[in-house]
């Protein structure tokens, strides 16, 4: 006998639960719980019975999705109750997706800098070897994506372990095609560098500042969450005092600076598409923060902040 998080002193033993398809309302089977008391153990039982990987399971009880790490008692599930089940389809890990989608632009841009003859006119290539600005562009581009891969492996703490497999192809298609778009024009023999050094070095300086700032933001976010948990906290310090998602904002400024530095419309296109997507994400994140940190029941109240651009938006 122990006090569960529901405050009930005695929790009746659950021997079996039924699994019902959320889509078709048909009963799919039963889970014999044996000694299982947590959601994780329940999912493991269902995995061996249904042959579906745990990552694909989505169980619902009384309108609430069962979260890993919680116990059955947290949801007040009783013996013989029905759980609504949905198969999320083949899943792939976040880390895998991120590494694959970032490796593409890194490798493709570098390959294009070798100026393969089936892409570029060889006589033009021999007349125009890679210039100073093109080398800087190669360095900055590669630095950015190496940084992203390292952050994925060592810094980021993801709240969900997996995403649908189709996202891998969708995301990679976007990043890899951007890699080709920018890489093709920046390594082109007929590439034109900016005609004044101010533009070049101002762009470079702003790019580096944005990259460092973005990294600091990622560190702050990562430190908010103890390893292995899915805790969400209010980010504080640095630019987080002025907006909810300065990491996205600094990413956009990095690419705008990169475009300035290289005098590049393809770079601007990349910045624009990425910027619009990240703006949408920032709005969603901002709304989530406000909803979760409403100041009630002992929770902190989310401070007044802009969404995406410090002081402005």
């Amino acid at each position: 006998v122990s006090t569960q998080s529901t405050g009930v002193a005695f929790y009746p033993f659950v021997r079996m639960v039924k699994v019902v398809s959320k889509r078709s309302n048909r009963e799919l089977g039963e889970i014999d719980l044996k000694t299982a008391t947590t959601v994780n153990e329940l999912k493991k039982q269902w995995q061996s019975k249904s042959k579906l990987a745990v990552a694909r399971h989505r169980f619902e009880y009384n309108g609430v999705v069962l979260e890993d790490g919680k116990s059955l008692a947290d949801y007040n599930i009783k013996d013989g109750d029905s759980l609504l089940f949905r198969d999320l389809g083949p899943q792939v890990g976040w880390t895998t997706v991120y590494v694959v989608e970032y490796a593409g632009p890194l490798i493709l841009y570098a390959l294009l800098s070798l100026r393969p003859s089936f892409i570029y006119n060889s006589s033009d290539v021999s007349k125009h070897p890679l210039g100073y600005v093109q080398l800087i562009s190669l360095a900055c581009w590669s630095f950015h994506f190496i940084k992203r891969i390292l952050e994925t492996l060592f810094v980021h703490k993801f709240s969900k372990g997996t995403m649908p497999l189709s996202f891998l192809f969708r995301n990679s298609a976007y990043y890899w095609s951007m890699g080709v778009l920018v890489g093709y024009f920046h390594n082109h023999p007929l590439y034109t560098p900016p005609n004044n050094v101010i533009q070049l070095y101002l762009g470079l300086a702003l790019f580096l500042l944005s990259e460092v700032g973005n990294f600091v933001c990622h560190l702050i976010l990562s430190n908010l969450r103890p390893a292995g948990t899915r805790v969400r906290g209010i980010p504080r310090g640095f630019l987080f005092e002025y907006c909810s998602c300065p990491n996205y904002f600094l990413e956009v400024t990095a690419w705008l600076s990169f475009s300035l530095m290289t005098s590049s419309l393809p770079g601007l296109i990349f910045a624009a598409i990425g910027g619009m997507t990240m703006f949408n994400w920032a709005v969603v994140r901002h709304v989530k923060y406000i909803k979760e940190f409403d100041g009630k029941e002992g929770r902190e109240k989310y401070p007044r902040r802009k969404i995406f651009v410090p002081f402005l938006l």
Partner: protein
Amino acid sequence: GINAEYGARVQSTHTSTMKSPSTPSAPNPLVNYYLAAFNLLSGVGWMVVLYLLISHYVNGGNYSTAYENVGGVLFVVQSIALMEVVHSLVGIVKTPVMTVLMQVYSRLLCACVVTYRIPEAQQSFAFTTMAGLWAVSEIRYFYYAANLLGLSPYILLWLRYSLFLVCYPLGAGSEWLVMFTSLPYISRTNLLSVDLPNSYNFAFSFYYFIISQLFVWPFGLYIVYTHMLRQRARNLSSPEKEKAN
């Protein structure tokens, strides 16, 4: 039983419900009247296009000169459709912006870019069929206007969800032919194309762009057609028929 679940997929946030552009998102009567007026105006505009097209032939005209009669009005009427994007952006209509953009894109490309600039496209037979089929399928504007004014005559409902069966494939085919006919001119004149070197470090070949659209068009038709088939099944099912009658 369990195996049936393998077919289930995560609902993508990008699934567009593709509501009709007339579905207003706020019950503001002024907005409703504006939208009704907009749809009526567009519908009438397309009737004018159809009238000019038919009268050209009735007066003994040839397909190579059809554009002279119809082209100007067509351009104006089709350009007005750009407002549908604004309506969606501003939020007075529930349709997502991406959906409206895709719907309007094919028209703008064919009417306001290709036919507007390229003589071979204007003089093709496909121009006549394209303009005519567009005009016929734009009966949908009257359907929207009626809905906004609270009316739902079954004949408009039926037309809206039946004309497409013929108009969409023939229309898409005509658009494809118009684009195909325009290729030689684009290649000769480098229309709307930019070459390296330039200070923006960007190049664009309208010729290859149009070729890429020739490959995309059949997929676009498939998507739009199957969507309309589902809408037809939903809207013209028996309970609705009895209600409307």
